[in-house]
């Protein structure tokens, strides 16, 4: 009897292992680094793309209802004035440092790069701003209402339809909006240009379908459902291309030292101190370090 149980256990384990392996084999390989097409950085500190290009070439068309559009119009008027002010050397009023992009902007229009780690139970999107999206695909439901609060990244679950990851996200708020506000959608371009296009509520639901359309591109089809702010679901498509020149994740350190402190109401330059040693002077091992030798056994007497 014991032997039969043991055999059955081994058989079950083998089946489970095989099933797991098969499941793992069906996971797409989206490894590598990706960046938003339309949000490539420029060495000068801005986007390679102009704001006009971003507005023209990326899919936006926000179906805002009248109340939302009135808010958006007010925001845009301020943003256009701000852009004009900056062009004339006038500082933005009461500016402060902010380091979080938040969702859905992370997917729609950022200059960040990101990795996608797809596993059977969870897919993780890791952005170079050190923001992370966790998409749980283990069959769970959204976090119960009594345990849920809105965050800049929301609460995400998902499932796989073949090689397409279907994501469902709720409870999103703009990182710099009011506590009861929802997420927002903005277009960015040039060095200073941005325009708010959508102002959503915390009741908004975001459905995405992400897939690889060719070896060099991922695609994300996003639909935002928010009857309180939109007249109909808002659909947008974004593509991501492989990052060039760099093969490892390099993070931003936005929380680090401030190179542009505001002095007497004006932005200034504050270069970092000189290096005691120059970058690139690190010793690079030619091979991975070998495992440490085991401690010698005590000598037998």
């Amino acid at each position, binding site marked *: 009897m014991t032997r039969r149980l043991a055999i059955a256990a081994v058989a079950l384990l083998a089946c489970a292992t095989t099933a797991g392996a098969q499941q793992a084999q069906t996971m797409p390989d989206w490894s590598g680094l990706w960046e938003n097409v*339309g949000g490539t*950085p*420029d*060495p*000068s*500190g*801005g*986007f390679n*793309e102009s704001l006009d*290009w*971003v507005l023209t*070439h990326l899919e936006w068309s926000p179906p805002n209802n009248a109340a939302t559009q009135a*808010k958006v119009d*007010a*925001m845009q008027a*301020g*943003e256009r004035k*701000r852009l004009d002010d*900056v*062009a004339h*050397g*006038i*500082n*933005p009023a*009461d*500016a402060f440092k*902010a*380091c979080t992009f*938040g969702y859905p902007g992370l997917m729609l229009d950022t*200059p960040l*790069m990101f990795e996608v780690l797809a596993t059977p139970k969870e897919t993780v999107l890791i952005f*170079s701003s050190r923001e992370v999206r966790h998409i749980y695909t283990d069959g769970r439901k959204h976090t119960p209402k009594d345990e849920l609060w809105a965050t800049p990244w929301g609460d995400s679950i998902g499932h796989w339809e073949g090689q397409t990851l279907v994501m469902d996200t709720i409870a999103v708020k*703009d990182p*710099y*909006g009011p506590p009861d*506000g929802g997420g927002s959608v*903005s277009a*960015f*371009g040039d*060095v*200073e240009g941005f325009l708010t296009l959508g102002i959503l509520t915390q009741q908004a639901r975001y459905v995405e379908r992400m897939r690889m359309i060719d070896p060099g591109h991922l695609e994300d089809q996003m639909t935002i459902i928010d009857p309180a702010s939109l007249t109909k679901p808002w659909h947008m498509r974004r593509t991501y291309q492989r990052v060039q020149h760099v093969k490892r994740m390099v*993070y*931003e*350190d*936005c929380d*680090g*030292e*401030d*190179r*542009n402190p505001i002095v007497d109401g*004006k*932005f200034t*330059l504050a*270069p*970092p101190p*000189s*290096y005691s040693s*120059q*970058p*690139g002077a690190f010793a690079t091992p030619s091979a991975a370090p070998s495992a440490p030798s085991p401690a010698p056994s005590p000598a037998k007497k």
Partner: protein
Amino acid sequence: MTRLARCMFIALAAMLTATAAPAHHSFAMFDQTKEVTIQGTIKDFRWTNPHVFIQIMVKNDAGVEEEWSIEMTSPEHLVRTGWKPTTLKPGDKVTLVIHPMHDGSNGGQYLSGNGPDGPLIGTKGGAGR
């Protein structure tokens, strides 16, 4: 600073007046209507977060060398465009095109340039321009 994940600045007024306040930075200290070309010798290439700086010695009209601080974007963005921490070295002779400071001080925003090995990465002309 830019929305490019470096230090970003947003207008508090915008945050208070609406629900959506996009994160942002400001290059308000640079005169983006002007481009100035400077020539000099690299003192330091300071590859640090959140922004990289080129410290360059430039002769003024009296022939006296003065130190200029040229701000770039973050290391994360620079490596993606092909820059390395060793792209510029102390002693390199370079020509840089910058947006100058509004206040006339010795600084600016990097746009493009030429280094010891030819054109530096960053000349405008990518998608959308």
